[in-house]
């Protein structure tokens, strides 16, 4: 084709790749013959989330390139072969390998390099920068033999690097030349608070420190000497002292560059040569370099449009940022330092909770110019919108940062006040109007909205606001805030329970066909329906039609561990176990080399069994008299007991005996969430019954019953429900209480949260259970009797049924175990090998 254009892109970083995408999906797609120079050993990856490399996201997972993308679009990528020269007269680019590539349009997307201050000793071993995957690999290797690390630079990136060092287990220092942290984005007050918070996490902050030399240390590898005479010793030094544009190629071919670096571009991202473009961190627009990815993406779109003959313009970018640094929210908007003439400030400080909020407004107090938030950045989205859209401030602007109490809403605030043109997502340039249109066209869940508009899928900073726009729009469209369990059923869990019970529905498929929406299910409705079916009919969870509905723990009747193996918890009712059984358990654990630990629930957990080992192990456990402990299920877990009056000199009743009775009565009951019980033999309460879903404490005259306690994330003290009960009444109340909970709770709602949402509270619950105010008492007891009567040890059934045993094969076409499961020994037992151990040559 004679109107083909040869496009050459130098640099395959975030912005370079975005450009390739924009070009490939734009109007010039058919005409462009594209070659991309990629200096790094791999194609573009997500530098913004680079630090996640340390928390296990490998290079593949960081990749920005869909597999097959370059092939599909015929883009030639020269991996590991950097461009070394540009000849603008001949219109060619020379690669290091010698290849000569001709171009019609050239795009420079060379990014920037980390600035390393020319301190003597800066080039010693174990001194690093933080920019590429290779940098991080080197840092991780060095950290293996190090105890102390120091980061030079207390800006945004420096603090992120410090967090990474800390997570690698190093004692960490941050050294900053300026008198405060994040001097560019945050003012003095915010910086002081940030420092306090970061120091409280164990990172030592040294501000106002000018490093003069790095030399041999006495106790550590390096000593850093500062101008004021102070010094610290460290094993690793990480420079994060700013970035410099990579403009050497441009300089060499005489393109205009800025005084302090950066390739000069116009509003269409053209350099001083109209056939050469520059985008991303190497480009200088309006005298500024933009060190963030969103403006770079915008430039990429503009350049791709220009090459296709369009006229889009780059008009600058907002440099506001919001991030979480070591768990501390920090945000900075616009003129954070309040430098505009006549600017006025409002500041709110809460020393107790570590909050600092400041807004900068214009002289008339009408427009927001900037803001700084530390400790709580929830208001970021709203404040940013005020600034970006020049919205009129409320009469008392300080209301924007003062704590809101008693739910009083702010005047004129909220997404409803935003104009349609307001940009909500700056990464993907999505406006409020576009979001509203997408909602109107049917994207009525957050997931759908993100998928079709891409809003919220970049840095994620706008997610809250996107959610607010969604809710506001749904409300406008007259859609109530939805209580449906998920997109597949227009019902709550409670409604589904009734439909199953009343219509005698026995399978997910049947429920879906009769009462579902569309077809199929998901990981929300499937396990919820599986649990309802089990509560009602108690069929085996691995029956053909039920197996695929179960969460992995229920599907494999074990608890999934981080490396894909399972743990095994046999029932040890009441925590009572004979020496023989204890020995048998030990022998099985030894035979299969399982990690063995006493749980917090008075039983024993055996870890590290591979899927295909589970049936064999259980066969042996069953032979030794054990049964499943349902540690994997939303089901009755444990009934904890204290030793009681059999042995204890204070005990007033047989708590172990009652615990055993209760545990065997309710074992196998599946419920909206897990259930934990305890029985104590006297008021000293050694079994901690008042922190359980059902707790029983012996009294001189019978048993006191407590309900709806919780340990865990949000502990709740149980309520005293009834006193001095004799055994039969006690059991009847528990039957009714449990079944009423199973009927009415939401999915994954423990009894404590269920209780708190129950209208009428304790009195109502007592009326239903004790006085039978709803007239359902007998029914509840019957339903419970059916569950108790249909109990089977799930493992016993599973190992004796060949079809169910098949579910535990490692592979459908092979019996070889997964050889990527690797253990190492620690304290005489196995544990999963860590990522770095796997990389260091253990079989992978």
């Amino acid at each position: 084709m004679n109107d083909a254009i040869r496009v050459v892109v130098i640099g395959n970083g975030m912005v370079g790749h975005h450009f390739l995408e924009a070009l490939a999906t734009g109007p010039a797609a058919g005409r462009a013959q594209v070659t991309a120079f990629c200096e790094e050993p791999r194609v573009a990856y997500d530098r913004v989330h680079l630090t996640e490399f340390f928390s296990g996201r490998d290079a593949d997972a960081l990749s920005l390139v869909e597999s097959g993308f370059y092939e599909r679009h015929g883009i030639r990528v020269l991996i590991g072969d950097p461009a070394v020269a540009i000849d603008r007269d001949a219109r060619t680019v020379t690669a290091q390998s010698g290849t000569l590539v001709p171009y019609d349009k050239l795009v420079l997307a060379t990014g920037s390099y980390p600035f390393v201050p020319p301190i003597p000793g800066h080039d010693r071993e174990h001194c690093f920068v933080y920019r590429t995957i290779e940098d991080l690999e080197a840092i991780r290797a060095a950290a293996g033999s190090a105890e102390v690390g120091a980061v030079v630079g207390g800006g945004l990136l420096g603090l992120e690097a410090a967090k990474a060092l800390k997570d690698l287990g190093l004692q960490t220092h941050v050294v900053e030349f300026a008198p405060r942290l994040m001097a560019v984005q945050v003012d003095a007050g915010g910086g002081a608070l940030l420092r306090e918070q970061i120091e409280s996490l164990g990172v030592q902050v040294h501000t106002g420190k000018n490093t003069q030399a790095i030399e041999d240390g006495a106790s550590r590898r390096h000593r850093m000497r500062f101008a004021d005479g102070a010094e610290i010793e460290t094993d690793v030094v990480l420079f994060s002292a700013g970035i410099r544009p990579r403009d050497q190629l441009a300089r060499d071919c005489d393109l205009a560059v800025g005084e302090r670096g950066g390739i000069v571009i116009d509003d269409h991202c053209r350099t001083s040569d109209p056939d050469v473009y520059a985008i991303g961190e190497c480009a200088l627009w309006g005298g500024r370099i933009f060190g963030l990815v969103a403006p770079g993406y915008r430039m990429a779109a503009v350049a791709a449009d220009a090459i296709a003959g369009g006229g889009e313009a780059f008009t600058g970018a907002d440099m506001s940022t919001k991030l979480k640094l070591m768990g501390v929210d920090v945000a900075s908007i616009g003129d954070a330092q309040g430098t505009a003439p006549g600017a006025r400030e409002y500041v709110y400080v809460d020393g107790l909770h570590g909050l600092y909020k400041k807004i900068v407004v214009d002289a008339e107090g009408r427009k927001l110019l900037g803001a700084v938030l530390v400790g709580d950045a929830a208001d970021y989205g709203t404040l940013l919108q005020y600034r970006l859209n020049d919205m009129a401030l409320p009469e008392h602007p300080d209301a924007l940062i003062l704590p809101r109490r008693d739910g009083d809403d702010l005047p004129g605030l909220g997404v409803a006040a935003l104009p349609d043109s307001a940009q909500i997502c700056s990464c993907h340039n999505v406006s409020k109007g576009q979001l509203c249109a997408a909602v109107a066209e049917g994207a009525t869940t957050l997931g759908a909205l993100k998928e079709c508009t891409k809003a919220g899928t970049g840095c994620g900073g706008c997610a809250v606001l996107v959610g607010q726009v969604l809710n506001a729009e749904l409300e406008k469209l007259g859609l109530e805030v939805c209580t449906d369990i998920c997109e597949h059923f227009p019902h709550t869990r409670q409604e589904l329970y009734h439909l199953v019970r009343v219509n005698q529905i026995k399978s997910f498929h049947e429920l879906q066909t009769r009462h579902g929406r569309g077809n199929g299910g998901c990981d929300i409705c499937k396990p919820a329906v599986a649990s309802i079916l089990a509560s009602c009919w108690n069929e085996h969870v691995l029956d053909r039609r039920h197996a695929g509905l179960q969460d992995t723990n229920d599907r494999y009747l074990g608890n999934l561990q981080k490396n894909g193996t399972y743990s095994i918890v046999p029932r040890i009712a009441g925590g009572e176990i004979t020496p023989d059984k204890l020995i048998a358990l030990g022998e099985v654990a030894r035979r299969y080399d399982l990690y063995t630990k006493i749980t917090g629930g008075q039983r024993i957990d055996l870890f590290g069994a591979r899927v295909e080992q589970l049936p064999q192990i259980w066969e042996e456990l069953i032979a030794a008299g054990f049964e499943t402990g349902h540690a994997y299920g939303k089901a009755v877990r444990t009934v904890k007991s204290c030793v009681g009056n059999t042995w204890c000199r204070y005990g007033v009743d047989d708590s172990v005996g009652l615990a055993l009775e209760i545990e065997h009565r309710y074992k196998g009951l599946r419920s909206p969430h897990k259930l934990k019980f305890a029985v104590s033999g006297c008021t000293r309460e050694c079994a901690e019954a008042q922190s359980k879903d059902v707790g029983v404490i012996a009294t001189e005259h019978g048993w006191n019953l407590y309900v709806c306690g919780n340990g865990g994330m949000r502990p709740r003290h149980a309520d005293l429900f009834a006193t001095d009960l004799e055994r039969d009444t006690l059991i009847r109340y528990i039957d009714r209480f449990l079944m009423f909970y199973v009927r009415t709770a939401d999915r994954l709602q423990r009894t404590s949260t269920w209780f708190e949402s129950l209208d009428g509270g304790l009195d109502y619950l007592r009326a239903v259970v004790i006085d039978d105010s709803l007239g359902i008492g007998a029914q509840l007891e019957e339903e419970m009797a059916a569950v108790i009567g249909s109990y089977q040890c799930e493992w016993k059934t599973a190992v004796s049924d060949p079809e169910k045993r098949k579910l535990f094969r490692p592979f459908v076409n092979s019996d070889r175990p997964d050889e990527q499961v690797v253990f190492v020994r620690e304290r005489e037992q196995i544990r999963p090998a860590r990522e770095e151990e796997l990389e260091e040559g253990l079989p992978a």
Partner: protein
Amino acid sequence: MTASTVQSAGVDAALRWLDICGLDDLPYDAGVAALLEPGDGSTRQIALFRIEDSEQVYAIANRDPFSHANVLGRGILCWTQGQPAVASPVLKQHFLLSDGRCIEDESVRIQVFPVRVHDGRVAVGVAES
């Protein structure tokens, strides 16, 4: 019996079909792991998913890119916006079975493989090298 072929995005090279198992060996509306051995000495773990009792079968990599455990075949089969996906059993991220895209994190995509169901057998395609 009709042959149903599910083609993954971006695969247009010549394919060689490797027989994996019988259609009836696959569990109902769920996943299972399998080994893919093209015969060049390499072995890969894949996960196969069968939609209910149909001949619609998908193949994706078995490795969960977030936890690095080989477990995707043990995740729950989900439908999101009319498309089949699997929820990782470890940390619950969702991957589309059609193209491997992670719904929670666009930058992550796992490999998908073409599947052919013919005469009650399931075969997975690998690019001819």
